[in-house]
């Protein structure tokens, strides 16, 4: 292949899915439809080894995610292991199931940053989306605790048809909670979100309005809060440079230890993933078949192969190419140059106010 292992760039980030267990049922959850069972979860000592190997490989930041990472009782030990490995640790939490006391233990263990997901600025709607009564109040309470402890807070809001009209209110909510960063993340359609696509998909007009509002707020709040936006790619003309390019910047370890180039990669048939129980992270990064499969540009077909942007967007997302064009080597159909682009426009038009298929574990 094009990079052949040793010349692979050093990764910057590791997404550590500590568990797939979660009390919430968000219909856009990025976890796979088939979740890793608790009995298969890596223990804290194995995570500690993975963190040391990651740091030696160049990883700087570890995102402790799930599922709900606080579902693990040994979370403080895992946070400490990240710190000991000289990694910057980011807790990605639903805030449900994490007490103030638990959070304080994580802060003492060296946690660097907390990201709390909030489903909407309207509490009743937020609880409905999460499929958990009282979730919104608990999230607000934990956010206050994060700020009280002096930890930086990011509020993550996943945006879709039910809440897109309140983008401005959600940024105001993040400011009021004391967040220094807010993610306005339009749903990406994989896993549970793909299953619920028709119920989640906003209209093009709604998306364009929301993007304009975010741009205005970004200027208005400059220096007060950082607003990061994940764009809704079904309405884009160019694909996103998914995970910064396959096997270039980040890796993802599942609760059971499989190492993936991105969290959705297991939808692509025929990829061979290696497990941290059997291989070092460096071996997996450099030599595992799944990481080599789409590294560089040699695997590309037209229109990507001769495209001037191929080193910028890497042909977009491999999972989306497989899911929407039926071929993981095809151009991401979000790209207007893809022969399947009309499919994306048609799918975006399939909107229906169906009941959510809540994620369940």
């Amino acid at each position: 292949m094009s990079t052949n292992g040793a010349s692979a760039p050093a990764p910057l980030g590791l997404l550590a899915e500590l568990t797939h267990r979660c009390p919430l049922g968000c219909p856009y959850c990025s976890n796979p439809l088939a979740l890793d069972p608790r009995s298969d979860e890596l223990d804290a000592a194995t995570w500690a080894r993975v963190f040391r190997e990651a740091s030696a490989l160049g990883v700087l930041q570890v995102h402790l995610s799930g599922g709900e990472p606080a579902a693990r009782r040994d979370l403080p030990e895992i946070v400490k292991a990240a710190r000991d490995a000289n990694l910057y640790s980011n807790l990605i939490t639903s805030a449900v199931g994490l007490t103030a006391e638990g959070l304080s233990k994580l802060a003492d263990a060296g946690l660097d940053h907390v990201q709390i997901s909030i489903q909407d600025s309207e509490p009743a709607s937020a609880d409905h989306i999460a499929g958990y009564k009282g979730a919104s109040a608990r999230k607000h309470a934990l956010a206050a605790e994060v700020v009280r402890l002096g930890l930086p807070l990011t509020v993550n809001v996943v945006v879709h048809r039910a809440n897109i009209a309140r983008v401005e209110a959600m940024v105001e909510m993040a400011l009021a909670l004391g967040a220094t960063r807010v993610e306005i993340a339009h749903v990406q359609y994989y896993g549970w979100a793909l299953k619920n696509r028709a119920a989640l998909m906003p209209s093009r007009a709604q998306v364009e309005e929301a993007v304009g509002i975010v741009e205005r707020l970004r200027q208005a709040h400059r220096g007060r809060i950082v607003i990061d936006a994940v764009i809704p790619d079904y309405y884009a003309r160019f694909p996103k440079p998914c995970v910064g390019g396959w096997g270039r910047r980040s890796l993802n370890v599942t609760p059971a230890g499989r190492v993936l180039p991105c969290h959705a990669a297991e939808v692509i048939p025929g990829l061979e993933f290696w497990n941290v129980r059997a291989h070092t992270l460096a071996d997996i990064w450099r030599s595992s078949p799944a990481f080599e499969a789409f590294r560089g540009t040699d695997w590309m077909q037209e229109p990507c192969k001769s495209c001037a942007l191929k080193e910028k967007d890497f042909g977009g997302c491999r999972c989306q190419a497989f899911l929407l064009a039926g071929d993981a080597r095809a151009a991401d159909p979000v790209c207007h140059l893809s022969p399947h682009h009309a499919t994306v426009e048609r799918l975006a038009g399939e909107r229906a106010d169906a009941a959510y298929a809540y994620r369940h574990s």
Partner: protein
Amino acid sequence: MEQAGPIAAGARPRLPRGVRLTHNEAQGGWLLLAPERVFKADAVTAEILKRCTGEATVEAIVDDLMKAFAGAPRERIESDVMKLLGGLAEKRLLELD
């Protein structure tokens, strides 16, 4: 964050909780880590940031850098420091108390 005016010489800059300067061999040197952000820090930037402890004033930091980078004119160092600190403060990567 008040970024309207110039940074006072008596301000005591420090990296807030959640912002860390680190060294990683595989990444080839010094880096400033923040929520969902990584900034490569060149040698001069790293020397400035190492001194942002919340104890030293901007003026003292410039004095100290004069010793570390002997021969560099004071105005040049001062302007580099102000530019760096102002930019970081605007991104909320630095506190100026």
